């Protein structure tokens, strides 16, 4: 048995959104000479446009650094940047499995947030050593001692040795590096044992095929090796291995303890799954590494190509996204209104939004998405139980004995000033109050039982707007509960539009129906005839609005040379029409399908 290189430290960073994770990571890279200050683009690791725009990390990104420590040795640091949002816990769990340590960043003025806690517990479950770092000490509102006390009170970690840093101006960065050397354990494993490498991420490169991001636990891998995975039956020859510096840098072989990438001309995305273990095909390891907890989708929506002929492109894009985000699930679906598309499952609303945005930006697809839904348990009169996440697949009312909906336990953290607003909101959302705890003078934890279908609608936006962004919120699904649920249909000119159907609680059907009709009335352009917009429950009309017939739509002064310009105007109008879907005889722009997400207040 040969131990791995003892001068390697593999760690990740856990932090709440906006507590300075990416900035600290950049600073560490700068300090270890990985990149010069001059060459640094702001926030190196958040390379996706969406990440930079929103100031959040969605994908994990590994990077290797060299550090000359005070003990005279040169250390290799592998840092794996992780997302902070609750929806991306899955991503976090993947990076944790590749590390021995985690830096926990706590904002010196804000203390620990709910999402951070969830990830800290995840790290503890994975037996990671945790190094607290108090950031943003340059701020006038910084209270580092209180932050330390909170770490000790809430998590039970000794925070006395926590470095006090400012990632922004670079204060005390060296102390973080020294602490990493001192507190994080070196990798375990056996270099002489058969290869075992955990795939913690992957992406598709047009020239090299699928690139696997791996953490080697045992053994070695080099160019020319024949590899396979536990789940796959195909054998691949390794064409390139390397490390992240932070861009991919080819290297001669990877050893146990190291983090890097493997390219092996893997053409098919389906052949390799994140969480699987790479092994040597000629010297197979007996047992796979523990994979990841299989995650359950909680939010579902239909995704359709705007242009029906792009179905294949949409499928390819979803497959490629799934390659490095196994939490995305989808299956083909059809809608009378929208044609062929996919029913997709996500970990949460933000996850859904991000995926939609990535489809549009990275794959240049115009898509239509339907209202998000949760998975309902339907007990039929013949006592069969089915799960339904697509309102249009709900069995006829006569066949339904009862329905159950997923319930969550929600923790809401907020300054006490906003308690009233939060409680109002939770009441509106059918929440049941469970407990309230004062964490300190400025922070209260509210615990509620809430139906998930109320949360996926607009809960997050509302809680943020009612508390001026101060409150944070986390939830976990606790089970299913019986509920009086009904299917709300929308009829356009008398025809049911399946893509607009939603499942709602009986008590809110009337108000949702009315709001929806009002919003649709605004969103549907006037046409040559009058269009009734109706909401119905079980065949009974509960609300109605009318889109009046258009009365003026004509080009002024169509003279002389104007003709080319006038024709262009008409062609532009025609382009707009092309982007519409025809439901019965009504032409509907794709934005209409998002109206379902809007509410009238706020």
């Amino acid at each position, binding site marked *: 048995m040969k131990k791995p290189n003892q001068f390697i430290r593999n760690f990740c960073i856990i932090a709440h959104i906006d507590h300075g994770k990416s900035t600290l990571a950049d600073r560490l890279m700068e300090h270890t000479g990985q990149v010069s200050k001059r060459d640094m683009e702001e926030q190196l690791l958040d390379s996706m446009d969406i990440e930079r725009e929103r100031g959040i990390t969605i994908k994990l990104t590994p990077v290797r650094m060299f550090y000359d420590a005070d003990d005279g040795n040169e250390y290799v640091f592998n840092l794996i940047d992780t997302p902070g949002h609750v929806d991306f816990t899955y991503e976090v769990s993947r990076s944790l499995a590749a590390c021995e340590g985690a830096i926990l960043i706590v904002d010196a003025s804000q203390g620990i947030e709910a999402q951070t806690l969830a990830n800290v517990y995840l790290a503890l479950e994975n037996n990671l050593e945790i190094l607290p770092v108090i950031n943003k000490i340059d701020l006038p509102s910084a209270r580092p001692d209180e932050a330390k006390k909170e770490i000790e009170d809430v998590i039970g970690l000794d925070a006395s040795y926590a470095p006090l840093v400012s990632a922004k101006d670079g204060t005390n960065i060296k102390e973080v590096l020294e602490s990493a050397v001192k507190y994080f354990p070196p990798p375990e494993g056996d270099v002489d044992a058969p290869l075992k490498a955990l795939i913690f991420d992957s992406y598709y490169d047009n020239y090299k095929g699928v690139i696997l991001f791996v953490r080697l636990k045992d053994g070695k891998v080099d160019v020319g090796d024949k590899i396979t995975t536990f789940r796959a039956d195909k054998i691949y020859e390794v064409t390139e291995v390397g490390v992240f510096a932070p861009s991919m840098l080819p290297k001669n072989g990877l050893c146990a303890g190291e983090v890097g990438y493997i390219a092996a001309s893997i053409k098919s995305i389906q052949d390799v799954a994140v969480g699987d273990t790479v092994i040597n095909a000629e010297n197979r390891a007996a047992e796979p590494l523990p994979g990841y907890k299989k995650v359950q989708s909680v939010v579902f929506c239909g995704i359709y190509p705007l242009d029906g002929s792009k179905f294949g492109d949409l499928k390819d894009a979803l497959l490629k996204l799934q390659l490095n985000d196994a939490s995305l699930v989808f299956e083909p679906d059809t809608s009378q209104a929208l044609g062929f598309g996919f029913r997709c499952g996500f970990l949460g609303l933000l996850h859904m939004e991000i995926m939609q945005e990535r489809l549009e930006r990275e794959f240049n697809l115009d898509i239509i998405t339907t209202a998000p839904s949760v998975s309902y348990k339907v007990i039929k009169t013949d006592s069969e139980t089915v799960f339904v996440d697509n309102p249009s697949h709900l069995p006829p009312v006569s066949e339904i004995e009862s329905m159950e909906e997923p319930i969550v336990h929600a923790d809401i953290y907020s300054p006490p000033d906003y308690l009233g607003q939060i409680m109002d909101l939770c009441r509106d959302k059918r929440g049941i109050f469970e407990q309230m705890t004062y964490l300190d003078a400025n922070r209260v934890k509210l615990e509620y039982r809430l139906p998930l279908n109320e949360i996926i609608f607009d809960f997050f936006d509302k809680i943020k707007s009612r508390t001026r962004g101060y409150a944070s919120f986390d939830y976990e699904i606790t089970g299913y509960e019986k509920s009086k649920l009904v299917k709300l249909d929308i009829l356009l000119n008398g025809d049911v539009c399946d893509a607009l159907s939603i499942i709602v609680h009986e008590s809110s059907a009337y108000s949702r129906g009315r709001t929806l009709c009002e919003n649709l009335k605004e969103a549907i352009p006037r046409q*040559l005839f009058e269009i009734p917009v109706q909401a119905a429950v079980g065949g009974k009309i509960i609300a109605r609005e009318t889109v009046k017939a258009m*009365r*003026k*739509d*004509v080009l*002024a002064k*169509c003279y002389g040379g*104007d003709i080319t310009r006038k*024709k262009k105007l*008409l062609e532009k109008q025609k382009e707009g029409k092309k982007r519409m879907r025809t439901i019965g005889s009504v032409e509907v722009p794709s934005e209409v399908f998002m109206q379902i997400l809007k509410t009238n207040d706020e």
Partner: protein
Amino acid sequence: MAGIYVHIPFCKQKCRYCDFTSFPDKTGFAESYMTCVYHEMAMRGEELKNYVFDTLYIGGGTPSVVDESYIAMLVAAAKKYFNMAENAEITIEMNPGTVSASKIALYKKCGINRFSVGLQTAVDSQLEDLGRCHNLSQFISCAKLLRGENFSVDVMIGLKNQSLEDIGKSIDVAAAYGASHVSMYALTPEDGTPVYTDYLNGELPDGDEVAEMYAYGVNKLKKLGFVRYEVSNFCKRGRESRHNLNYWRRGEYIGIGVSASSHIKNVRFTNTFDLDEYFKCIMTNRFPVIDSTEIDAEGRREEAAMLALRTAYGLNLAEFNAVHGCDFEKIYAEALKKNSRYLEISNGVLKIKDEFLYVQNTIICDFLK
């Protein structure tokens, strides 16, 4: 048959809704400009030797703002450089605030036989709002000078604070003083014009109200004996604007002057919008064309349909099929079916039904690819 359009880009002042090419502060350039126009006509005349032109339209801007002798020379130049038909229709646009008896006398003498007068509205406060430099009484004086002539009056709807009665008054005035033709347009708030601010502030009537005004105007004109022959154009029997009809029939025409457009041998082209550039080109014997597009077979069909469906004459299917060498009803079967409620075909002519003429864009769009 073909037309000639000459653009006179000068004005006394810019109207608040105007986005045409006009230079209110550059009337001093009129002489140089007109010289260039004659020269451009000479160049084009050489090129279009085989054409017979049966209309000449002098538009703007405000053609009546430049000295009438330039206009007389312009008409003379047109007759000299182009083959003008004996009975050619020669129209000039006029602002009622810029005419005089001697001016109109010279226009008539040089051969102008049709006049287009920009009344816009008979309500002085609304004229002021539009930034027009004339009032109702000036229009009346002008119309009196035109007594017995073939003249058209422009009337606008969709103005700030405009009532149906105001529209009725404008039409009544035009009819009472002997107009043989009325063009009734809705004010279009173009981005970049002062009127656009009124629009943004919600001071202009909305689409429904304008539709109401239009319906009112159509009815009023009908009662006064004006027949609608195009969505915005009305005339007494036989008094259609031949020049404009040529546009809607996809006829050929040559545009002279800054910003003028042409359609010759299935190529549509446009002159520069820049006055200096125009001078420079003409003085170096170059055509000032900045944009030229050859219209392919499909484009020709689409244009023909789009233009013909604007008119009350509609689209003659047999004629269309002969010109374009295709079967209209086959090519546009889908559009015809989809819009069957709004269209009618009788005696081989396809028309948009009267009541849908004012919402024609939506229908016409379906005939574009």
